């Protein structure tokens, strides 16, 4: 169990987003067809399906690459990931035309407006969510695959 450490780290990293993405797609479909939020699912899922799991895996490989004395605790390590993912996600959302900036705030899916004043608390919620997910869920996978 001491071989292919980085492959195991990648696999441990992608488990959580890969499992969650099915739930995410379900929520998007319900939001679109039940609550009539005009979410362009075929464009929205590109980021959570195509990019997020890979980034999780690579970020966990990076964690495994750092020697034990040099890396942050896993939760803190994961909490840094939104600093990369949020700009990437917003850029892809703008490029795919379901995120716009208006005078009242950021408009997602032409329906959900997040006022600019709430962006920083919203960012904090994402960071906290990532901290908890990495500390407990990715940490569990790392333990199972003998990474930690």
């Amino acid at each position, binding site marked *: 169990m001491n071989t292919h450490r980085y492959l195991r780290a990648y696999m441990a990293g992608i488990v959580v987003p890969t499992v*969650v993405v099915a739930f*995410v797609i379900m929520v998007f479909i319900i939001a679109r067809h039940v609550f009539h939020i005009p979410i362009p699912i075929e464009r*929205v899922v590109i980021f*959570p399906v195509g990019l997020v799991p890979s980034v999780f895996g690579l970020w966990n490989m990076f964690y495994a690459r750092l020697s034990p004395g040099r890396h942050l605790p896993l939760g803190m390590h994961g909490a840094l990931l*939104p600093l990369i993912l949020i700009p990437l996600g917003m850029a892809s959302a703008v490029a795919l035309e379901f995120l716009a900036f208006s005078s009242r705030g950021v408009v997602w899916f032409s329906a*959900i407006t997040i006022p600019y004043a709430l962006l920083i608390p*919203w960012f904090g919620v994402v960071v906290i969510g990532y901290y908890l997910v990495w500390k407990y869920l990715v940490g569990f996978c790392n333990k199972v695959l003998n990474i930690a």
Partner: protein
Amino acid sequence: MKEASDARIKELLQQALPPANAQPRRDLWPEMLRRLDQRAPASAVPWFDWALLALVAICVLAFPHSITVLLYYL
């Protein structure tokens, strides 16, 4: 003369000290497992992580429309 004395001392020491037993008198592994189990609650979820989870839950409940945006990043 000296060799005889050394041999005598060795003999006396062997008589005085109990023979070393390489095997423990009982199986120590169950005791080890019991101690590990006792230590497990210390690594359970600390209170501030519960507080952070509650904070996230409150924010999601206060702004339910943001759920889709949050899920976009997972």
